């Protein structure tokens, strides 16, 4: 793999790095808040993917001015899409955090292994 390819696709490397970091946190951490953080990082990497691919080299912001025909614009659509995705991401995070709060109230902990231990105990007692 040439250095050229590495450099010209640097946005993809950033995306992949973020994605892996987020995914790793999601899987490896037992703390529910950390899991949500991991999920956020994971989702953010996708936002980066979309936004970076809308960029056209040398393009200007997509604002139409009179008399400026034939100007190269960056693609605005991915931005719009990702605006929606960000909203969705915030909603997911808030539902997740709300659940974490309720879990803390119900179990007294937000550590996954402790919750599992409590569940196993109560199930055995039933």
């Amino acid at each position: 793999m040439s250095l050229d390819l590495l450099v010209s696709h640097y946005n993809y490397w950033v995306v992949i790095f973020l994605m892996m970091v987020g995914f790793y946190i999601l899987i490896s951490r037992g703390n529910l808040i950390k899991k949500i953080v991991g999920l956020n990082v994971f989702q953010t990497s996708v936002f980066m993917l979309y936004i970076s691919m809308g960029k056209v080299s040398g393009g200007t912001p997509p604002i139409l001015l009179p008399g400026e025909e034939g100007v190269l614009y960056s693609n605005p659509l991915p931005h719009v899409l990702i605006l929606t995705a960000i909203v969705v991401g915030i909603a997911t995070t808030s539902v997740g955090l709300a659940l974490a709060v309720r879990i803390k109230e119900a179990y007294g902990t937000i550590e996954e292994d402790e919750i599992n231990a409590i569940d196993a105990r109560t199930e055995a007692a039933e």
Partner: protein
Amino acid sequence: MSAHLPILQVVVPLLAAPLCLFLKRGRVAWGLAVLASWAALAIALALLGQVMQEGVLSYAIGDWLPPIGIEYRVDIVNAWVLVIVSGIGAVVSPYAMTSVEREVEAERIPLFYAAYLLCLCGLLGITITGDVFNVFVFLEISSLSAYALIALGRHRRALTSAFRYLIMGSVGATFIVIGIGLLYVMTGSLNMADLAQLLPEVWDSRTVKVAYGFLTVGFCLKLALFPLHLWLPNAYTFAPSAVTAFMASTATKVAVYMLLRFFLTIFGAPFSFDVMALDRVLLPLALVAIASMSLVAIFQVNVKRLLAYSSVAQIGYMILGVSFATVTGLTATLLHLFNHALMKGALFMAMGCVMYRIGSVHISAMAGLGRRMPWTMAAFVAGGLSLVGVPLTVGFVSKWYLILGALERGWWPVAILVLLTSLLALVYIWRVVEAAYFRDFPGDEATREAPWTLLGPTWALVALNLYFGIDAGRTVGIARQAAEVLMAGISP
């Protein structure tokens, strides 16, 4: 009016949802939810009728023409799924009144119906839209409200189940967005019909194949294909009864629809089966899902969890139909979408009746209920027979086409496996039946049959199980037509 049916399909529940929040009284919110659900069903039926008469309907939102604007595109495939989803909504929502009052705190009941309507709206939206990014948006609407609905269960494990579902569901949805993004990179379009035209030119690119991979994983997470099903059993077990009945009959079905729509309509059957070998990927997964999850179901002591594992196995049957890569196989899949919704809906609703009276759905709690709650248990038996696939029930119809599909491909070991696993279904249903009819009732003498507000909707589904088992001509006709449409793809 009739020209705007596609948008009304989504807008009616979407607008009814926030209204529920303003209605302080649970019963009023319930009334609105029922009304909206029945309106949705009426619209879906009208759409199905229109599609069968006039062919594909295309609706440009805000008059922005496709492929630039968002298009709602109704063909016989999604009209069929719309009817399934809204039909289940129309049956479960009347049932919810009594069941939810027992299982959810009073001040949260309007919130419950708001979340339910949003979930319904999301599922209908995924199904009706002709825009791939729109799919993602509706997917998240339905998923987020589903997490909230599941968390409303009384047991605290409902919270952890909802959290786990949230994590796995979000990962799945994100995978789907990645896939959609990569498709957009390659084609510059988000419109399904447009994508179907543009994609064949770039079949060879690795990006398209990577997108396909991301989408596969995302869909399989959402539809709970073994081994990505881990979120499902607990979520179904601890959710309120009405939610379980609704979700089990709709959410995974819509995910199967998404898979069919993306892989057969957008990518096209030739790409999926010849280039990506989707059939060979899905076949082993489906077989393992059917066999292993049926076996796991046998050893469950909580009947809702038992049925949940059975659902994972049944999803295996649907995916098995896809893996045949034939019209007959897809017919079986599309039939089973409908038929499984009917039987699992009936079974979970019967369990809701038990929950209402006994407060538990443990197998040990079923003891002697055959005499105490004869109608409830009879509904369970009827639903169970349908699940097993006894003739004259809908389960038999699905099984018939599935086996026919297997034999058409010459895969008779698969046919035998399908038949053997339906015996496993008989075993796990039988465990409940034996408890209900052959053990003595240990509990309170005052225990009575469930109220008719619960039994009515339950038996309505049971009746449909029998009706469409005896007269399956119409459903088979629609499913076959839809299968042909899917296999043919969109013609230029």
